[in-house]
């Protein structure tokens, strides 16, 4: 199912923060994790992910480091900063409240 880009745009940050809160990841890993967990519902492109990652890094919410892997190849891993951890918590809480409100409007009987 293709989602409205406006709908997606607001959730990319929250998803990235939540994933990085679990552990540090590199870009491709994030795309794969999102794809797997949503069973293909969210099929992110590079154009969605990397600009957002860079913006978050510029804002000091996440930080990056190049790490040499087992294969000798270097990968750029991202992790949350302290500020990012606090933001993640707020964003998730915000999303919870939002979905609860949406659910109340859409699926609960009137009256």
């Amino acid at each position, binding site marked *: 199912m293709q989602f409205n880009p406006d709908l997606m745009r607001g959730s990319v940050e929250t998803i990235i923060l939540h994933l990085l809160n679990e552990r540090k990841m*590199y*870009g*491709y890993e994030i795309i794969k994790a999102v794809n797997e967990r949503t069973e293909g519902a969210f099929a992110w*492109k*590079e*154009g*969605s992910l*990397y*600009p*957002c*990652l*860079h*913006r978050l*890094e*510029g*804002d000091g919410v996440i930080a990056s480091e*190049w790490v040499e892997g087992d294969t000798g*190849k*270097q*990968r*750029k891993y991202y992790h949350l900063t302290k500020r990012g951890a606090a933001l993640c918590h707020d964003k998730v809480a915000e999303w919870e409240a939002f979905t609860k409100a949406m659910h109340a409007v859409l699926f609960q009987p009137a009256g």
Partner: protein
Amino acid sequence: MDKQTEQLIDDATAGLRHDPELRLDVQKELLSHLEQTAEDCRAEGCEDAEAQARKTFGSPLELAAELLNGNRRRMRLRALARLFVQALLVPLAVLAALYLGYGGLVRLAVLVNPQLKYHYISINDNTAPLKISLPSPPRSLFPSQGEIDAQFEALSKFQGHPSDYPKLRRLWEQHKNDPDAHEYYGYYAQFVSSVSHHPRHRLLQYKLSGTRVVPIPTPPATPTPASPKEARDFAQFEAEMSLGERVDPDNALYHFKLANAYLHDGMLARSESTEPNPEQQPDYLYDSLLFDRGMAEVRAMLQKPVLTTYMMNMVRRRDAILPPARLSEGYLLHSSNAMSELFYILALENALARKIPGCIRLLIAQGRMDEANYLLENWWLYPSQLTRGSHTMYDLLVVDTVTRRLGTEIADIDQSLGRTAQAERVRRDATRLNAVIEAQKLKLKSGVVSKDDLHRHGAFLANISSGYMIDRYLSVTEMRPARLYEYTMLEQFGTSLAMLLLATLMLTAAVTSFAWLRALRERGAVPLLLLPSWRASARIVLLGLVLPLAVYALYSRLPIGGREYGLYTNWPRFLAEMVVMLGILLYLPERLMRTAIRRRCRELGIPLPKPGLPLITLGLLSGIVGAAVIVGMNIMLGISTGSELDRMFGRFAGSLIGFLVLLLAIAIAVMVVMLVVRTVVHYLRTRETSDFALYRGTLARSLIPLYAAAVILLGGLVQPLLLQQEARWLRQDHSLYPTLQYAEYPLAPGTVEKMKQQVLQAAEQLEQEK
């Protein structure tokens, strides 16, 4: 990476082209992403995994726009940082290096070079305002412009110079009705005569041949008559001296000046001759009229109790107006001003002492025995007058010279007249008058003054010039401020040297970077300006600069630093410490920065040469280690005074010090040579084509801000701290630095006063005996 993938990534990062480092970083990230995608494709059995990966990549143009949006703010901040470095930090560092670094070294030259010092202080130029005309440390530690103007005003009021006497006369006129008006007049009068010689022409008429005055058969060249102006000037001079006699009747100064003026053109004593054996030269009588006038003035002069110019009184008045000196230049200014005025009058006093015996011989030759006998019996009144007018050790030394000269020559005259007993008495009287100063000299030679302690714990300056200034023991506590002052001054100059060396390295890095830019442009590459993150930059500055400086500050102020001992004995160790510090400041921050740059270049995929310490760096390190070994040896040995080393190493002590100094010299030479060679090698590499060209160019360019930061840190933090310490030690020193009131060391006035009273006692005894 195949060409299509390369093109795809280039297109996708086109929006980041204004930030080459960021672009490289993002390109590598995207490449890693594509490679991972291709791997997964391959694992699923795709035939052309790379093409598949490119297909799933999406539109590079859309990605370029998104990446630009996502990185816009970051790029702006990074651009600002680069602009700050290039437009502000580097120029500021150049200015700091020139103003503070070069200025510090010039300051050293000013302080040690009397000619430069006098030029700087403009003693003889009252028309120039008293400005700090050379590069100097921050203004906040110097007087404000208003204070400088006030200083000049006060200095010029009392600053004497032969060409400036009209100004001094006006000063007297302002104080004409004061109780101390005679002091202003006397101070003025000492300068008047220097430009006024008698306008009568010098005509060599007679000379003393044996004991007879004979006319010179061959007349000299045609004499030049006085010009009307010369005649007017001299008439004014005579009038001023007459006025002085009325204003200041007890002072022999005015008769002294007139005597000098008349006798200068009236006669020439043989001791004034510039021939190799002056005692074999004749005395010359040039002008009988002037000679007679001179003799009359000498007699009148000897009737007065004192001969003084009130110079120190003027110095005290001036220094009461001026703000207290806060730095070395202030002290030098005040004391050298006073000394420059003092030496002028001392020269005149000596000149008259040369003339008097010649006058006596000429009087005898003319048969004027009464006048000659008067001088033969009352010659000692002259040094007595000088003694009463003495305030400084230099005055007493002139008394010593005058007494010695007059005593010797007058005794010789008595001897030539057959008056052996009289001659003996003259010699004895001269010895009695000089006994005090001779005793002072003997005291110093015999070590009654704490010479050994002075060597070990005293200031360097005290050791080379304390000969006549100290006649009591100084405690180590008393010597401390002067001693620490010298260390602080030298640390300042070491800091200035470090700033200049770092600035030189910065400029050579800039030149090398520019050369790499030209070399790489053909390949379409540009050396990057890599700025580490704030955290990484702070770590480099703290570990590479602040920490070594803090360790040195702690080391030097604790007992292990050996600052209890003065530079006179401690200089090899101190020099070694400076070499170690210089070496660390030049090497360590660069090494840390180089490591950070290598790491970043590796992240960006820039080819790197193998790591390791090249020979050049090894040479640099060996110099640092060598100097550190010397410092360590000094710490272990205690202090390298001659007596202690003699005790420990016997006759090998001198050799040990020599060996240490030789090691140090080698360490310094190795470091300097390695630095130069390294710089040249780095530059010459730009002419080679190399896989590592981008790395080397990036390294050169990225080191520039590090050197700039180091220069600014030293100039902005270290130098002001050292200046404050200099001011503090100067203010606390009450033993060995020129006092503003006596133009001599603070210990001198007490000694001078004591010696003066002893000389006057001897003179009073002579008078009673006569």
